[in-house]
């Protein structure tokens, strides 16, 4: 219940997301001079010591990453805008890292692509229940959200939902499952986020990381 005790003031912790953003995140940290090449790939360790003694990197599940940063267990983090939108955490979002580009879209089976707006109740399966609820709330349209953790595109094929709200990159997964995009809810890239206290209590060390990451992004 109480905020976590934190590591010594000298050590800066950066949280990187496992999964689709991991490679890009590690490349940015490497370009910023914080990681030695691909050494992190060779182990399954969840905490990677940086190339400099003052920095370490932890690898967290994307859905948990902002929890580490919000509570100050990590000073900085790399997170997709999709997760930031869904979780609405109390962190500073400072740099667009420019990789991990994708879009959050509403999609329906081809036969419903024209008529979905007339469905009541409208059932949408998604990993982003808050974003989806806000979208339909903004449209003034009632919706039944079915929260899922993966393979959302399966839901309309088996009658669990009418349509889905999900991330797309190339759109191939949608096509292969006979789904058609009908609306775009957001665009997402990876972002650098910072704990609100770290920005102050470890200002110099954290500001240095922000500057070097920003420079690495500009050079990319």
């Amino acid at each position, binding site marked *: *219940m*109480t*905020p*976590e*005790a*934190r590591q010594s*003031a000298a050590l800066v912790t950066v949280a990187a997301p496992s999964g689709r953003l991991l490679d890009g995140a590690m490349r940015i940290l490497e370009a910023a001079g914080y990681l030695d090449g691909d050494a992190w790939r060779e182990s399954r360790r969840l905490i990677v010591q940086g190339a400099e003694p003052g920095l370490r990197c932890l690898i967290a599940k994307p859905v948990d990453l902002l*929890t580490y940063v*919000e*509570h*100050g*267990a990590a000073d900085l983090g790399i997170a997709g*805008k999709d997760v*930031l939108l869904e*979780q*609405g*955490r*109390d*962190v*500073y*979002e*400072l*740099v*667009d890292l420019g990789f991990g580009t994708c879009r959050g879209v509403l999609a329906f089976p081809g036969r419903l692509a024209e008529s979905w707006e007339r469905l009541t109740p409208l059932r949408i399966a998604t990993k982003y229940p808050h974003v989806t609820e806000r979208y339909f709330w903004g449209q003034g349209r009632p919706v039944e959200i079915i929260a899922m953790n993966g393979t959302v595109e399966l839901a309309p094929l088996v009658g669990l939902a009418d349509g889905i709200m999900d991330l797309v990159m190339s759109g191939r997964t949608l096509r292969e499952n006979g789904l058609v995009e009908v609306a775009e809810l957001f665009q997402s890239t990876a*972002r650098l986020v*910072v*704990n*609100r*206290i*770290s*920005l*102050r*209590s*470890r*200002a110099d060390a954290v*500001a240095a990381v*922000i500057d070097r990451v920003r420079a690495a992004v500009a050079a990319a």
Partner: protein
Amino acid sequence: MPRDPRERWQLIPSGTRDWLPREAVRLREATAGVLAEAARWGYREVVTPTIEYLDVLVRGEGADAADRLFKLVDRGGELLALRPEMTTPVARLAATRLRDEPVPLRVAYAGWVFRGREAASARLREFPQAGCELIGPQSVDADAEIVALAVGALRAAGASGFSVSLGHVGFLQGVLAGLDLPGDDAAGVRALLYQKDFVGLRDLLERHRAPADRLDALMALPALRGAGALEEARRLVHTPEGQGVVRDLERLGEALAAHGVDDAVTIDLSIIRDFDYYTGIVFEGHTAALGAPLLGGGRYDRLLDRFGVPLPATGFAIRLERVLAAEIAGTPDDAAQAWVPDAVVAAEAGCGAEAAACARALRARGFAVALEVLGRPWEQVAAEAARRGVARAILVGRGTARVREGGAPERTVPAADVAGGRGAAARGGAS
């Protein structure tokens, strides 16, 4: 001890907590410390109801706040809510019962506040706050007083190694001033600010083709802190609003030096507070030991106007549970959260009255004394006292008393010596 954790009677609602003896004592000390420091500055304590009409709280905190409130329905169907902080109830009080008091009005408070839901898990929905409000003056001197008092109050609560970051909501408004954003986007800017989404802010300004110097100022903002921050800010922001803010903060810095707290305060123009009633300075106290602020406050010149009294005001609130958490951060928790008395007093057979008199005499001198009420044998009482870390075990007989202190061998002394202040029990004094 809980046997089956699935049984609801063993649980407390999410976002609440129990305070065990040692924590409860520290909470009370910290609360008393803040109120005593406030009193030394001329701030009088007020107590307001835990529940208010929903309308009152929404009037103070804006319609968006209704989502965050812990709501109840009264017998007549009126909507009530538990107070989410104390500034709005104090504003209501200042606009009603305290309306005819001369300004400046200096008010202190301590109490429990509630949030209906917190965005993140593991955040408390009920927590103790103590704070002060200075109502009436709109001056750098008033801001300096409230910041200096905040530093003193945090210290009096027992916090150490903290610093207070001081910013101003007008600085960001200065960056955005004169850009003529359409209504939706102006609201969007505010929403992005509360979300601390600087990427989104940049996108929005770029979409409106804002001048490059505005973008530079915005992106520099998170780093605008410390000794050179104000000079850098002056260089970055050219609007009259922004320059005025920089001037005010410089004068405030001088006033804080006069109060002797400039060492504890850092200029930090990136401070963004969650409540939307702030109109001037904003500040937060923090320590490296915790990822969340210990204290928050600022100037709110339009809040009382919403209650029909157009008075400017400034104030702060301390998150007492975080001050306590920062104290113990990194140190192992005492498993039992134990609190033990200074002495235990047992009676020899037939000497209950003498033992009670002895305990009463010791209490009168300020000792915490527990009487043996289980009727256990002396050896067992003394052994348990030693094990729990109770400084003294006393067995009262007729005219004499046996005393064990720490690891020392048992001594027999006249009973009057134990109760009267001479001899064993008196040494060390009340602690």
